[in-house]
């Protein structure tokens, strides 16, 4: 059902997404078996739309159009509407698709005009996968803790270290790597790298779900970095890498939360379709969760609109992300409960989704990181703003 509180043009977009999301179910199951199969689905409207949402209008070769409206990239609210409704079809296809992804947000946050042009124009030329390499094993996505080094020598700049749990890392042609040039938070840089390249190695990690994302471990063993690829190199250190990591995550978290909302919604729709006659008590359980999903959707859209208005709220964004991811997981547990003990064996889509949703917990900051941010928000706004 379209959100009546959305502006008219976004309601048109939402309806369109509901329609094209249906085409993602089958590809989602295929990618669960063969993550490389994404190349067969690059012409799907949903694949093109998710990419278009992340390309700034001035770098887009063409604008995505629906019903007389054009939808240039850049609006967080439009993006969460898209990711929510498309994830109802399959989140794995979206995350496996080519496009700027989180790396694009980092380039936008930190890059100068020339760096942005070089990065974004390549998407018009050919399908391009990207990665956002922040997380390190044992350090999580805490930018201040990272150990990958950017070394300056007579031969120039080079990267040394390893990143882990990087989406599309082993498939991408380009990406942003967060690294350390000096001790302390001001010593962090973000650099653009192209792959494959000497001194770079990417290996797939076996994961239980969202397999299309091809979570990878990246090793940098002296990969060269052009000084022109240090993002925001002309800025003061306080306005560079560390800030960029935070800005990027703040910008992208609503999209991830929106995907979790869409998946939670999809699971409940699946239960309703498979079990048309539930006992009253079970109907109430489904209705309760559906109501919570609707509230989560509203919260995600509120934080996205605030971000578009230049008033990002990290605390409320964390609350929205945490709530949405937990609801998606709750929905799969409820579905298995209601569809019976053979549910995971007789419903392949549910089995896949049951595994997929747990990934949301770890993407763009773990649940406990967000719980702490919610706590800090409660200190700021006693009563939690309720």
């Amino acid at each position, binding site marked *: 059902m379209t959100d009546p509180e959305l502006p008219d043009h976004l309601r048109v977009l939402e309806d369109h997404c509901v329609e094209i999301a249906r085409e993602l179910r089958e590809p989602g199951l295929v990618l669960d078996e063969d993550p490389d199969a994404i190349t067969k689905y690059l012409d799907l409207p949903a694949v093109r739309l998710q990419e278009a949402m992340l390309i700034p209008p001035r770098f887009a070769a063409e604008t995505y159009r629906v019903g007389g409206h054009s939808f240039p990239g850049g609006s967080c609210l439009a993006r969460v509407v898209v990711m929510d409704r498309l994830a109802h079809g399959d989140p794995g296809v979206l995350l496996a698709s080519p496009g700027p992804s989180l790396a694009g947000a980092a380039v936008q946050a930190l890059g100068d005009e020339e760096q942005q042009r070089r990065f974004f124009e390549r998407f018009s030329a050919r399908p391009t996968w990207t990665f956002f390499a922040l997380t390190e*094993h044992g350090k999580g996505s805490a930018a201040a803790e990272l150990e990958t080094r950017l070394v300056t020598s007579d031969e120039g700049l080079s990267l040394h270290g390893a990143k882990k749990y990087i989406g599309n890392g082993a498939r991408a042609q380009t990406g942003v790597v967060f690294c350390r040039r000096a001790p302390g938070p001001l010593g962090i840089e973000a650099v653009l790298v192209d792959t494959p390249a000497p001194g770079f190695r990417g290996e797939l990690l076996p994961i*239980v779900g969202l397999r299309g994302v091809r979570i990878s471990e990246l090793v940098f063993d002296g990969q060269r970095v052009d000084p022109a690829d240090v993002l925001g190199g002309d800025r003061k250190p306080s306005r560079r890498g560390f800030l960029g990591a935070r800005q990027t995550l703040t910008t992208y978290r609503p999209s991830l939360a929106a995907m979790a909302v869409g998946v939670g919604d999809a699971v409940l729709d699946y239960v309703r379709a498979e079990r048309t006659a539930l006992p009253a008590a079970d109907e109430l359980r489904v209705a309760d969760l559906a109501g919570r999903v609707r509230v989560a959707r509203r919260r995600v859209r509120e934080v996205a609109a605030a971000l578009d208005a230049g008033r990002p709220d990290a605390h409320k964004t964390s609350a929205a992300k945490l709530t949405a991811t937990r609801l998606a997981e709750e929905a799969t547990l409820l579905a298995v409960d209601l569809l019976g*003990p053979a549910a995971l*064996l007789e419903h392949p889509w549910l089995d896949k989704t049951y595994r997929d949703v*747990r*990934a949301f*917990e770890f993407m763009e900051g*773990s649940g406990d990181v967000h719980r702490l941010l919610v706590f800090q928000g409660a200190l700021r706004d006693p009563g939690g703003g309720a």
Partner: protein
Amino acid sequence: MTAAAPPRGTTTTDYAAHLDAAHEAAAPNAVVVGPGGYAFATPERLAADPLWLSGTTGHALRPAAVLPVANRVAAEFGVACARLADPEPGRVVGARTERLRHHLLRAHTRLLAHVVDLTVADLGGRTAAGSPLLGRQLVQAGIADAVLLVEETGGLLDAGVDHDAHPAAFARLVRGGRALLRLLGAASFLTDGPGGAVLTAEQVGTLYLAVRHD
């Protein structure tokens, strides 16, 4: 509960042995078949012409065929799934299929106990903002909750918990296991790590423990 306990010393890789021991506890050489004709056991046990035993009626089953059901995550831990095609009920076997469920709960509990150990070891070597992660109250509380769950479930099993309570105990293990895994971050999403082992226990438990089988 008088059945022998499954082997001690659960690790993420020997859940499969405990699963076979659970089938054996129901009846010698048996594989208990769950709803829909599905069964989980080691590939060796499934292939060894076992006594197929209905988990709901206690009848021996004669299938027209035994079909493999692919399961990538469970296979990582030596657990396979099969589906019996057109099983016909045979004689009633004097089996104790509730023992399977008791043993599965025990194996799941021991697996979580092992994951607690892994978590403490992993986080014990990590720091955040210069201080040990294990010094953080949020982390300590998460581990303590898992320990309490393991202790409580173990106590219930020692006391011979009524089999009507098996689904509720399993549901607590599922939710508690997931909460524990969150402490390991993205590492718990790896197929070959504790997250894969716990998911395998969830899949097996969903078939055999999620609802009453009487």
